[in-house]
């Protein structure tokens, strides 16, 4: 039952994103195992460029692994996180599928319009977008306010420029220590080659 529902959901999303089918069609018959956070599932690419949940005895051609922390970073649209997605097996296939997933969008207004009609669906969509934007803005403001408080009023967090300054000073200190170490080594060598004459005292 779950396989049926998941497959229908996937195919519904792909039908809404018609650009994806021609990208996946060349890989028809191939399958990919997705290990995303704690969930693991295998998907098979169908001949019409659609996707379905794979069967019980499927052997995947590629594996995509995304750890829970990486998933959080991907959700916040951290571009550098994409480089850390682990891909094994047929990398071309896995990359194309990852590309499709990252650009796929759920047109929920279209689905909603079938239930409540076009105009209410559009209004609900507008309201949701506005609500999401407000929540995002409020969260950003709150985070900014707290970080400012912990940096200025009750210092618990270090400011970026202070950390950078500290890092630069550590670098200078490390370079100085290295130079001093080299100088000491040089002096030790000189001392070993020409030991001081006790008669010169």
């Amino acid at each position, binding site marked *: *039952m779950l*396989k*049926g529902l998941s*497959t*229908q959901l996937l*195919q519904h999303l792909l039908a809404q994103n018609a650009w994806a089918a021609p990208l996946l069609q060349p890989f*028809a*018959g191939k399958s990919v195992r997705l290990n995303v956070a704690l969930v693991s599932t295998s998907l*098979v690419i*169908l*001949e*019409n*460029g*659609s996707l*379905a*949940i*794979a*069967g*019980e*005895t*499927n052997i995947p051609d590629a594996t995509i692994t995304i750890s829970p922390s990486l998933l959080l970073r991907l959700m916040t649209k951290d571009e550098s996180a994409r480089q850390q997605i682990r891909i094994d097996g047929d990398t071309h296939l896995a990359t194309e599928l990852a590309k499709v997933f990252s650009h796929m969008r759920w047109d929920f207004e279209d689905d909603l319009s079938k239930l409540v009609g076009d105009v209410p669906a559009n209004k609900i969509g507008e309201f949701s977008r506005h609500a999401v934007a407000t929540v995002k803005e409020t969260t950003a403001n709150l985070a900014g306010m707290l970080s400012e408080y912990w940096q200025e009023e009750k210092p618990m967090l270090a400011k970026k420029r202070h950390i950078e300054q500290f890092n630069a000073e550590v670098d200078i200190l490390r370079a100085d220590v290295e130079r001093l170490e080299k100088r000491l080594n040089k002096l030790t060598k000189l001392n070993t080659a020409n030991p001081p004459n006790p008669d010169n005292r």
Partner: protein
Amino acid sequence: MTTEHNTHFGFKTVAETEKAKKVADVFHSVASKYDLMNDVMSAGLHRGWKRFAVSVSGVGTGDKVLDIAGGSGDLSRLFAQKVGASGQVILTDINASMLGVGRDRMLDAGLNVPALQCDAEKLPFPDQYFDCVIVAFGLRNMTHKDRALAEMQRVLKVGGRLLVLEFSKVWQPLSKVYDAYSFKLLPLMGKLLAKDAESYQYLAESIRMHPDQETLKQMMIDAGLSKVDYYNLAAGVVALHKGYKT
């Protein structure tokens, strides 16, 4: 034990030449109430299983599909919507009564689906003609399953898919409950709803005699199909096998 000239008919052993006639009698008898009984027996789940089979078939616009043992035409109807006007779906069944029900239903739905009475062991189609061949709840009634699978493989194009939807081996912890349901409740429902307990007794027995998931997978590989995979549906009560012609 079956000999070279004997085969199973439910739990009974009959001559190979008799099986087709006996199966035909069963389906002539249940044809008019086949869908009602299917709904009652599976609590409507058979519709979901068939939809799932269509969704994993990969059939798209313009494809050619062969529905074997299609009976009442549920799958042909779903496939006809998928292939569109440029595609082709052919509904076949060995049993004239079942095929008649399916053909009338296609006509009532305004679908141009040819209905053809033929034996799956001797398909009247050229080699490499179909993109997808499907047999749902029909393979277990065939006398020579190996010959039928080889024929299905023959008519498939390279890259084409064979889908077999059939009762299979249920998940072990549920087997006692499933046995009680099949051998006690099923014939009783057949008696009350279709007034034909004997036919439904055969249905229950034939399900038990049908090969399990792994055996059928191997039979499909032996018939020349590759990348064979299966889905257990409803804890293995039904399995959907899918294989490719390469």
